[in-house]
């Protein structure tokens, strides 16, 4: 053993000891008394910080429900998470409505008419205020503001049309907040394999609709006249009352009868 080795050993050992003791001591002294309940709740929560509950992060949400002990809803977590958390906190479990997002515009970029080209920032919000890019002032601009905010990666744009993957969608509603044309709707979903929706948002009369889009709802009312139909017309536009759906076949029938094929479905 020569001098350098001994010195090296002493210094490294000394420093290692000094730092580790300091670390251990400080971690003991400076321990933050975090409520173990919050950690437990946080473990159960999905942890994707989607913000659907109105809090900025899952941690904030957990802290709030632990502190207030009030019934709550975590939409992406669904019943499972809500039941577990409620049990943990000993509060009344609230029934969660699971929702999925649908888009009220189902036209591809070939079907939507464009008479003025838009050049500028690639963001729907910009296009919306410039009135360029798309003749239909109700329809989907297709630049994907919703794609970038979706925490679950459930939204994609195929041929200029927004496609939502129901399996991935957690129903947080961020897309609805960001869409400048309010095309998104959160519809209740109880595990059906298909979700039907009206793929148009145009409230104008048939003449205007026909000039801007091949896929638009012309307000003909065929879907409304089917027996026990959940459809209703409002401002020349067909809507579905999801509470009144009695049977899927009616929806399928309406889909087939629609002259512009603007009643569409999402497959789970």
């Amino acid at each position, binding site marked *: 053993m020569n001098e350098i080795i001994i010195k090296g050993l002493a210094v490294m*050992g000394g420093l290692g*000891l000094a730092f*580790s003791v300091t670390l251990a001591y400080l971690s003991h002294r400076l321990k933050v008394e975090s409520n173990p309940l919050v950690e437990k709740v946080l473990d159960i929560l999905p942890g994707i910080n989607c913000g659907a509950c109105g809090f900025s992060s899952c941690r904030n949400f957990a802290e709030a429900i632990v502190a207030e002990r009030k019934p709550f809803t975590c939409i992406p977590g669904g019943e499972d998470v809500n039941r577990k958390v409620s049990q943990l906190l000993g509060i009344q479990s609230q029934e969660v409505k699971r929702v999925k997002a649908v888009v009220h515009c189902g036209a591809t970029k070939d079907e939507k008419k464009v008479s003025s080209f838009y050049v500028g920032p690639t963001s729907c919000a910009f296009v919306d205020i410039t009135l360029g890019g798309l003749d239909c002032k109700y329809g989907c601009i297709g630049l994907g503001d919703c794609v970038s905010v979706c925490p679950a990666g459930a939204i994609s744009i195929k041929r200029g049309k927004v496609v939502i993957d129901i399996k991935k969608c957690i129903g947080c509603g961020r897309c609805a907040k960001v869409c400048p044309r309010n095309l998104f709707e959160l519809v209740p979903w109880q595990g059906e394999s298909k979700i039907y929706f009206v793929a148009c948002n145009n409230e104008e009369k048939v003449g205007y609709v026909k000039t801007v889009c091949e896929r638009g709802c012309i307000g003909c009312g065929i879907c409304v006249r089917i027996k026990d139909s959940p459809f209703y017309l409002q401002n020349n536009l067909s809507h579905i009352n999801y509470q009144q759906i009695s049977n899927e076949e009616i929806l399928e029938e309406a889909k087939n009868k629609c002259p512009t094929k603007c009643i569409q479905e999402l497959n789970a």
Partner: protein
Amino acid sequence: MKDSLKYNLRVIFVLTFISLICGFILSFVFNSAKAKIKENQKKDIYRAIYQIADDCKNVEEKSINEETIYWLFNDKDELIGYAYLSQGQGYQGKIKILFAVDKSIERLLGIEIIENVETPGLGSRINEESFKSQFKNLKTNVPVECVKFFPQKKNQIQAITSATISSRAVVGILNKGIQNLKNLIEENDR
């Protein structure tokens, strides 16, 4: 509480133990390579010295104030000058320069760049003969200067195109080194 104490003890133990082992391995490796590293550095310096002063046949090392000065002798064992290693900051990192002066410290015999990490193709051209040879036979009573175009005075050299900063750094390090060397030799004579 007991658990956390145990955990902390484990933290302390593992960290210390690993530092100890690493310390040991490193010291061991360094210890066995130490001689070779020293030798390499020495070889570099000696090669540079013989390149600068071709009539030098023998070199003696002497340290004054913990700084090494190389005394150069010719084949008749007469003192012909001194060499000294000076270092400083270049454009990107350290530059180490070895220079030699005659025995009255009035005339530069030449310089060699021992170490540099300047930009290849630009700053690293301080290593080229055309740049280094400018320093031959410069007077040391006034500081060397570095100009961009056409040196006119005796103590001026021309900087490398598009590498003015590196060239200036070399000159700065050289001037500092000459000053150091003068002081050290003076101290030694006293």
